[in-house]
């Protein structure tokens, strides 16, 4: 059951081993800090396992968007396994295909080109947040 909270949860994989993981993390923070600060909340994915029932209730309380770096889709699968099925998934590697000129290699500090890609991913997340809230408001 999803409760009407007026907020959307965004869970990213954070993928420490891949540059795409850093993009997923930075894009998620851009949404939370700049694009939709009043409409979004997040949670560390590993807290589903390390935390308690409050953490595992996350995707049942908030309609949730999973943000994954690669095709293993840990955020989507983890959210579904431990909490509830995400409403949508944004895949960084898919977004990258739309912007082939934006190359990524950094895992630590993003270069301007990498930050541009993170911003593109963040804009896609924000668009999905608006769609979800619009549907929720109509119900």
């Amino acid at each position: 059951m999803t409760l009407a909270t007026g907020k959307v949860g965004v869970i990213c994989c954070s993928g420490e081993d891949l540059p795409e993981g850093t993009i997923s993390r930075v894009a998620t923070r851009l949404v939370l800090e700049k694009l939709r600060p009043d409409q979004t909340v997040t949670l560390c994915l590993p807290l589903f396992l390390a935390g308690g029932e409050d953490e595992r209730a996350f995707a049942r309380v908030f309609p949730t968007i999973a943000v994954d770096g690669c095709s293993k889709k840990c955020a989507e699968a983890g959210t579904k396994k431990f909490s509830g099925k995400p409403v949508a998934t944004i895949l960084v590697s898919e977004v990258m295909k739309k912007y082939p000129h934006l190359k990524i290699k950094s895992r630590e500090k993003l270069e301007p080109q990498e930050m541009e890609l993170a911003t593109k991913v963040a804009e896609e997340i924000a668009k999905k947040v608006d769609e979800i809230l619009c549907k929720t408001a109509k119900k």
Partner: protein
Amino acid sequence: MENDKVVVVPCSGIGKSLGTVGRVATYKVIERMRPEKTRTVCLALLTMGDDDALRLVRENPCIAVDGCPAQCSKKNIEASKGRLVHSIIVTDFLRKNRNLKPEGVIELNDQGDKLAEVIAEDLSERADEILRKEK
């Protein structure tokens, strides 16, 4: 043991700058200070029980790098039956370096980066010590 490397596993810590400090400290170690002796793995992969990730943490000594006392990295390595040989919490280093107050999650401020450097130096020494004992 695969490649004789210590696996340094930071938490995903997306809610606080402490998580970014642990993440940045890890990259300082695996990319600059001890690239030939250390590596990392995606913590989310461990949480999901990925076979390759499980094998990696079970066959190699692991260091958990956690931002806060929730210790997601440590708990996930333990739940994966990984070879956890050491763990640190960023808040412990912050207590000893009160002048280095981290701010920012997308990008750390200079003080946060310096705190990450302090932690990275400690982690590098730990990795050396662990590999010495493994021989």
